[in-house]
């Protein structure tokens, strides 16, 4: 059971990474980040089956933080959209050196 779960979470994580790397839309990138977090959550759960319940506790923490992050992140994206009329990350480069 464990190897399959780990493989599945790895696939999810890589999909998330590639999403972050390749996509330009801020919302999609944000969703991919969530995907990565959930891939990690899946790993925690899988290991919790073997090593005890501590992994499940971590998952709750991660979900809490992810929820907070989603709230803040979405708020930022909305503010950004109101300001610039776009959520394309290629156009948002104010921190260029």
């Amino acid at each position: 059971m464990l190897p399959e779960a780990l493989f599945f979470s790895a696939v999810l994580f890589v999909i998330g990474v590639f999403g972050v790397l390749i996509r330009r839309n801020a919302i999609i990138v944000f969703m991919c980040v969530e995907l990565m977090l959930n891939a990690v959550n899946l790993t925690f759960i899988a290991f919790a089956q073997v090593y005890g319940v501590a992994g499940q506790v971590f998952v709750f923490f991660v979900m809490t933080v992810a929820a907070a992050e989603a709230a803040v992140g979405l708020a930022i994206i909305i503010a950004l959209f109101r300001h610039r009329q776009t959520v394309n990350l290629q156009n948002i480069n104010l921190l260029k050196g």
Partner: protein
Amino acid sequence: MLPLLQAAAAGTHPLQGTAASWLWAVPLLPFLGFLINGAFSIVSAYHAGPADPTLAHGDGHGDRHGTHDEEHGAHGDDHHQVKRHPFAMLTSIVGPGVLLLSFILTAAIFFAMHGAGEIATPFIQRYFSWMPVGDLKLDAAFQLDQLSMMMMLVITGVGTLIHFFSVGYMQDDPGYPRYFAYLNLFVFFMLLLVLGANFPVMFIGWEGVGTCSYLLIGFWFSDKANADAGKKAFIVNRIGDFGFLIAMFLLFANLGTLDFDAVRAASTSLQFGGALVTAICLFLFLGCAGKSAQIPLYVWLPDAMAGPTPVSALIHAATMVTAGVYLIARTGFLFSIAPVAQIVVVMIGALTAIFAASIGLKQWDIKKVLAYSTVSQLGYMFVGVGSGAYVAGVFHLVTHAFFKALLFLGSGSVIFAMHEAYHHTGSHEDAQDMRNMGGLRAYMPWTWALMWIATLAISGVPPFAGFFSKDEILGGVFARAQHSTIADAHLFGISGSAWLYFAYLLGIVAAFMTATYMTRMMIYTFHGPNRTGDKEREHLHDAPWIMTGPLLVLGILTLAGGWINIPEFARFLGPVGALERWLDPVVGASTQRVIAGAAETSPGLEYGLVGLAVLIAIGGIAYAATRLDPKSLVPKREAVPEEGFEKVLLDKYYVDEIYDAAVVTPVVGTSRGLLWRGVDAGLIDGLAVNGSALFARFVGWIGSQLQSGQLGTYAWVLVIGVLCVLGAVTIR
């Protein structure tokens, strides 16, 4: 402070508890004068507003008197009333006053010393530990022995007279307190020089007098020529000081001490005529050549005449320039075991004597004649101390201080009178050129008489002071050429004996020239028709008594100064060889080592030598008196340029030009081209300073390129980084 000093000087010396325990006050008094006069100068400079006439006067005189070579500061403005310095009165009291006190104290110490009988060891006062560094233990200490006592008497005595003269000479100068501040400071450093109990304390004085010399040569610094002359003196002296320093390093490295007493004791371990002691002596002599204006470093002294004339008298004739002679006499215990170095000293001295004398033959500037004469006489002194005749050299130092100070102050009076005369009519003629003088005897009888005394003295006519001292030097060289440790040594394969005979010959010829150029100066200045100008003539007169008084005292000293060391053949004048006996504890042993137990020269030979010297002197005077015709002279502005060898002499053998081409131009060129443009502007500014800034900017540019603002790029970098770390961990 006093109890501390007394405690520090604890010991059982015959001079303990006498006036000599006040030794520290002798240099301190002039230093106090320096502080007070310096304060006057600063305070008055601070209060002088733009509307202050004294300030305008001080700023403007350089341009206004541009056609006069120098000597203009003393005599106010051509067009409006002279305004004296607000502190002139106080300065006139403080400046010479401290010197007078110092002289009185010195005299008291002298009598204490005289009364104490035979004093074999120097009286040393240690004040505090100055530089305790590793093996080097230096005290701030003064040493009183017969030699430094005599120098102190000369410095404070002649110094006091010249200070009084300066009161008259400089009173209308806007920088009056500044002048006296410098002059007092000079005396302080000069006393430090002769009183120092070790080489470094002496070196402080040595450098200090150089600084004061620089300050006073460039006293009228608004004229560029004067400021340049000061710089020249300072820089040429640095070359000599380099030699002095090397000699000190060598002494410390090999003997482990710098106290005169300890070096004297340790010098017995040095090999006679060895390379080490010869090197030390030659480096010391390099220092002397700088300070005492010997070939090849004499060039600064004639230019030093840009300073006020009393300064020329005190610093550049009587005291500072004799410091080299003093140094060799002081370190006679080293020179007497380095015969090769002694030959060098004698030859340089003799060559300088004749070289400078020949230049003096054709100078028109009255002060330039005296300047070259000083260089020449210093050469004589080095012939004396170089050949181990320390007493003779130091004796000439003393008599020279008298008669040369008199000559300089006399010329100061002449220039003063000339300048005042030109000043009355607003003329811009050269007040120092002898072609503009002539016949001054009728207008300045006192100056005329006194300067003739000095001229006879420097020419070596008996019974004036210069006769005894010069004769003793020449006799000493002759005797040592016959038999001495120097005569046995060799330089360039030629025996020391031959060198010394050659030096004697040069000395005799130089003596002839001396008599000639001095008589020439006197004839052109004081005799014949007056060439000053019809309107100016009625303003010529003797200087006021504050100036003529010191001249009179110096005249008496010039007359009788030779009697402090009367030779055997003139025993009817008084006690024979008083100075020789006085200096015996200091230089006696060194002198004995050099003459190596030789018998006295036979009386017949001695009479012959003396007769020859007198004949030469009178011959020189007679030659000048018969050959020169003051009537044919014309004032400077009408004079035709000299030609041939006369022009070479007038232009001082082009030594300055040769130095310019050989040393100054290459050094300046290298400094400008290589060191400034190449090293400083190119390497340091270009590569090091601007280069490092460029490098930092380049690195920053690379960093800023990474900062694209593209979130995608950052993510890529992050992922690749994580992969690299993970990969590295896995592979390991």
